[in-house]
């Protein structure tokens, strides 16, 4: 177990280090001058030089990288060009809203996908199955930036059930969470269906049925119980898509999280903030995936041998 733990944590650390490098180098070495983009083409050369100096862009790239890494090792993500505040401070303010939204979306996805996937597996090749899988196909094909506005139009503007945007009321979270969670629900319900179908073909299920166990108990205890592992893996992996999708969803609903912050920072040309947001979201994703892996190893002793 200890070996398994150490290998997983080691490779996670390696990936995290790589993420730091890629974020830095990709965002620094792309063609195009950030200073020119920030100030506009008509800026005075002196102003450009001043900003370049302020950002440390007049240093060689490796020494910029060194400065960046040393600051990062002390959890210093730099200062926002726009608000002149510490980026760590801004992120600490925004992260809870994103976590709340992601959790709500996850909850909605599981609540839709579990019953739908199970029903679909049990009623395989019937109209119910086809309908459920049709929904799943639709769910993966509707982009969140269209679904969001449509939900706002129907449930906020026409019916007046939920607020249009913001996070002032508790009910504000429902529409964004639904927007964010639908695609996950669709992917997850396909996954649940195939996981349960796999298990239903196995010998121990036949044994359980032969013992005279009720079909309900067979599905709920034996099939669902054994499907938990693949479902958890998919959830962990899909959390990335959820965090990425949060960027667009938060923008649509003016949800005050890290996604909206990213887009605002891009619009304000606040590159240190963009860099920090991408870094933090990605690191959270790596962390969650590592935890999923570890949980998997903890739940299923067979995995630890690998």
């Amino acid at each position, binding site marked *: 177990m200890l070996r398994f733990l150490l290998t997983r944590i080691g490779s996670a650390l390696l990936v995290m280090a790589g993420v730091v490098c*890629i974020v830095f180098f990709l965002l620094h070495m792309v063609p195009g001058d950030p200073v020119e983009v920030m100030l506009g083409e008509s800026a005075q050369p002196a102003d450009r030089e001043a900003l370049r100096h302020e950002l440390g862009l007049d240093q060689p790239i490796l020494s910029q990288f060194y400065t960046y890494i040393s600051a990062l090792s002390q959890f210093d993500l730099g200062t926002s060009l726009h608000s002149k505040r510490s980026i760590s401070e801004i992120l600490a303010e925004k992260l809870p809203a994103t976590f709340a939204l992601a959790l709500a979306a996850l909850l909605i996805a599981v609540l839709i996908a579990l019953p739908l996937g199970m029903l679909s597996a049990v009623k395989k090749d019937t109209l119910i199955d086809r309908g459920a899988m049709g929904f799943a196909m639709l769910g993966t*094909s509707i982009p969140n930036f*269209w679904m969001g506005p449509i939900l706002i139009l129907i449930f906020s503007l026409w019916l007046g059930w939920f607020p249009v945007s913001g996070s002032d009321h508790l009910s504000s979270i429902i529409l964004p969470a639904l927007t964010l969670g639908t695609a996950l629900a669709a992917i997850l319900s396909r996954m649940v269906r195939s996981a349960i179908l796999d298990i239903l073909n196995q010998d121990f299920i036949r044994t359980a049925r032969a013992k005279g166990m009720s079909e309900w108990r067979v599905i709920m205890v034996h099939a669902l119980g054994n499907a938990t592992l693949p479902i958890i893996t998919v959830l962990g992996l899909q959390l990335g898509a959820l965090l990425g*999708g949060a960027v667009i969803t938060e923008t649509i609903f003016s949800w005050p999280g890290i996604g909206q912050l990213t887009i605002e920072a891009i*619009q304000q040309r606040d590159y240190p903030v963009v860099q920090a947001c*991408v870094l933090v979201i990605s690191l959270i*994703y790596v962390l969650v995936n590592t935890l999923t892996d570890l949980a998997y190893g903890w739940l299923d002793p067979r995995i630890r041998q690998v």
Partner: protein
Amino acid sequence: MRSQSTSFWLASSILLLWCLAALFGRHLDLAPNSVNLERILTPPTLQNCFAYDDLGRSIFDRLIIGARTSFFVSLWVVSLSAVFGTLVGTIAAWRGGWFDLAIVRIIDIFLAFPGILLAIALAGILGPGINNIIIALTVVGWVGFARLARAQTLSIKKREHIQAAIALGTPTHKTLRRHVIPLIMAPLIIEATFGIAGVIIAEAGLSFLGLGIQPPTASWGTMIKDGTRYMLVAPHMVFAPGLALCLVVLSVNMLGDKLRDWMDINE
């Protein structure tokens, strides 16, 4: 079975329409950017079910040009990603050793960026424009192909006919081209199909965020974004491009599923 094939033909027809609109839309008599103040926000009628947008521009004409945008962006991104990713993945698996290890690490690192986040940041920093979108999405897109090509190459590397080619002294590039890549094509084609759906959504998403195609050029993403400002008075501005987008993506996904079924049978 019958309804299955109906939906398959429906999906194929939608895709055919999409391709035709993209390839030949320019030759139609369209005026996607002509502003007409008299018909601003005109709602749909039976004669013109697509109606006009906030500048009185024809939504139908803009949909056609938007089809062109999504078609060419997805074609470019998927082709570039597929070629580059397949090359990197195949060579990594073929050579093995430190090179393979390095590529695996790089793939792992790129996969650590959730969804289109990296593309959003890159597009934001590169600045808007169709070329920059293609660059940003390719930087994110090649990884999937590389991972798949590597896994597939590893799985067939030890087969007899390939070992025979090596034993005969066939040059590596020839072995890869004639004996390896044709065998790993099927899963890559499926990946490319789903990749097209992903890129169509990503392009529209970036344009929706204002990071992609710039006005006045029409993109389904910018059309949806423009429409959200007039949702109460002119919901058709949001419905039309969104429906077009969903139908095309849905069709591509269905075709991908079908392809996967077919190829599984062959295996």
